């Protein structure tokens, strides 16, 4: 709990896999009959072994790093966290915490603490008793327990609620208690499973800031699961984006925003979502251009160098441009206005460009007049903000 804590906690997940085997009868039901023609599997996560929730998960977490696992529902992020916690058996691979293989170690002996989405506070215990529970089970001396609980309560500003029961607290206060219960254990790794999902938007923002401050004070390794990309971007030192049990990309928030590894990451990170166009990538020696709807622009030197390094040739591509990087101009790609959303500092212009829905963010300060339904506008984008994705693999051609 103390900032001067000396405990080192690197976490390594090596080729981690989680398979939920079919329960008896289910496999039989799913087994195709011998004379039945082979059907193409729609969901790749269902295999003969069972339902694969996580696979090929490789991640090295540095000491005191804040890692955020993010992805849509069912992508395997919570399962991964639960495997680290010891609440789920690991079907394959190795989990190493602080240099020790932890696959078969009981949760209590992993030196971890976990904060749950629904707070998971013992309803019949007071806040103090809730926070002291794990220490009591460890048979720590009463004065040590008292010191640790009061220190944590001070950090989280819940000292005045120590004698209350959880039902007498608000959602935000309960979540603070849940965090307090975790930090009194002084864990090597702090696991958080969507801890802010049950809070309203305002409280979520406040608690997000609280977690950032808390992280500076308790200085331990964090693994944080969320489906909210804003939380992921604001909290994480690095983000792990997952889909269908696979890691899609690992990187700092800026890296994944600026250089999404594939179409999924490009669409998942960023709000509003990235615009996608069917376009052409043209190579002219060391220069690369993208052409879409009669508009042509040259990519910037950094992107050209990356593409050239992979010897990418001219080809049809999916072009991605973020709404905030799309500019309304006098000439460029032509589109019809469908909706104009006034957001205060900007207008989110929903336009139709050749059958594609496109969002353009126009700063209010740059607006020359009001946009009306059916107005024709033109937009452009620069070569530095254009993302080129393979039509065949959906991967970013820069990688």
């Amino acid at each position: 709990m103390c900032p001067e804590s000396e405990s080192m906690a690197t976490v390594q997940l090596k080729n981690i896999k989680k398979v939920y085997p079919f329960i008896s009868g289910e496999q039989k039901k799913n087994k195709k009959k011998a004379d039945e023609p082979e059907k193409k599997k729609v969901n790749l996560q269902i295999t003969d072994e069972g339902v694969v929730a996580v696979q090929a998960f490789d991640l090295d977490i540095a000491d005191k790093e804040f890692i955020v696992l993010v992805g849509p529902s069912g992508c395997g992020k919570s399962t991964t966290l639960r495997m680290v916690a010891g609440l789920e058996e690991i079907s394959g691979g190795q989990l190493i915490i602080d240099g020790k293989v932890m696959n078969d170690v009981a949760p209590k002996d992993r030196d971890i603490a976990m904060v749950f989405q629904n707070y998971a506070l013992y309803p019949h215990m007071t806040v103090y008793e809730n926070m002291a529970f794990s220490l009591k089970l460890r048979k720590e001396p009463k004065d040590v327990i008292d010191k640790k609980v009061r220190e944590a309560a001070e950090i989280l500003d819940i000292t005045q609620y120590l004698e209350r029961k959880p039902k007498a607290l608000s959602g935000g206060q309960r979540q603070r208690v849940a965090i307090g219960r975790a930090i009194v254990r002084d864990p090597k790794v702090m696991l958080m499973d969507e801890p802010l999902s049950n809070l309203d938007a305002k409280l979520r923002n406040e608690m997000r800031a609280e977690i950032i401050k808390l992280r500076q004070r308790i200085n331990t390794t964090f693994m944080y699961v969320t489906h909210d990309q804003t939380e992921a971007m604001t909290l994480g030192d690095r983000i792990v984006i997952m889909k269908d049990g696979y890691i899609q990309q690992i990187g700092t928030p800026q890296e994944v925003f600026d250089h999404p590894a594939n179409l999924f990451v490009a669409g998942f990170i960023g709000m509003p979502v990235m615009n996608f166009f069917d376009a052409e990538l043209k190579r002219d020696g060391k220069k690369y251009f993208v052409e879409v709807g009669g508009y042509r622009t040259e990519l910037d030197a950094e992107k050209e160098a990356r593409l050239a390094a992979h010897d990418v040739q001219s080809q049809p591509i999916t072009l991605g441009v973020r709404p905030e990087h799309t500019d309304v101009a006098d000439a460029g790609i032509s589109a019809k206005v469908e909706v104009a959303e006034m957001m205060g500092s900007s207008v989110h212009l929903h336009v139709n460009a050749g059958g594609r829905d496109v969002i353009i963010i126009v700063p209010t300060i740059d607006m020359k007049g009001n946009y009306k339904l059916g107005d024709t506008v033109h937009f452009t984008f620069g070569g530095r903000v254009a993302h080129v994705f393979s039509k065949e693999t959906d991967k970013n051609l820069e990688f």
Partner: protein
Amino acid sequence: MKKVPEPAAAGGGSSKMHNTLVYIRQHWQLYVLFMLPAFLLTIIFRYIPMGGIAIAFTEYNPIRGIFGSEWVGFEHFQRFLSSPDFMRYLMNTLKLSVFGLLWGFPAPILLAFLLNRIMSAKTKQKIQLVLYMPNFISVIVLCGIVRILLSPTGLVNSLLGTSTNFMTMPSAFRTIYIASGIWQGAGWASIIYTAALSNASKELKEAAVIDGANIIQQIKAVEWPAIKDTVLIQFIMSVGNIMSVGFEKAYALQTDLNLNASEIISTYVYKKGLLDGDYGFSTAVGLFNTVINVILLISMNALVKKMNEGKGI
């Protein structure tokens, strides 16, 4: 359209109560429709027969009826309380009930905790089916099975290599009665606790595991609080029935040689009332039994409320 307030709108206790009353007043026809059958059935089958209590104070003659029979006041009660067998019947009844409660009450709770630990839903269902089945055997059939199993040539004696006639031993009666009762009823009674345990939060259990709680500590911290209120209500109800030991089973397990332990108030009432035709006396004994039950129910409820933050019946 008239706006109808929700029955439990947010706010203080008095405003909640006010809203509920307004809601009831606006929909009184609905309440009458649903409550009337239950109300009538309760009146007809529970309250009107209470008039029969008067039999306890008369030398009842079925031909003359209650009002035509001779009024004897508390004579039957005095006769019963001064009878040399009164204490034996009372103690037999109390011992059977109290020991039955002590052994029989925790059994379904323990069973529910064990069932709750079974991870595979299918295995759990199969085990539950096996546990519930004895409940559907009639008491008389059950007693028949017990008599056969415990006969000198029965399975128990064969296994022990003895030829003891357990059914003639007064010292064995209570054990036989209570153990067969647990075997028959514990599975079925565990349903209510299993249902209550399903309310125990899965995340809370996992939090306890991470906190380092062992199985007993997990039960204490997570599962017991989830079923505590249900257990208390069941306990109060059971204590309220402590004197209502059904006569059928005791009568069916009774032999001339185990009467010392097996003659209880309800078998005595049966014999006096129906076999000897002494209706007034047997009603008085039955009423005495009921009064003791009511006193126990009220006292236990008050005690539990005191111990459980005002929660009781």
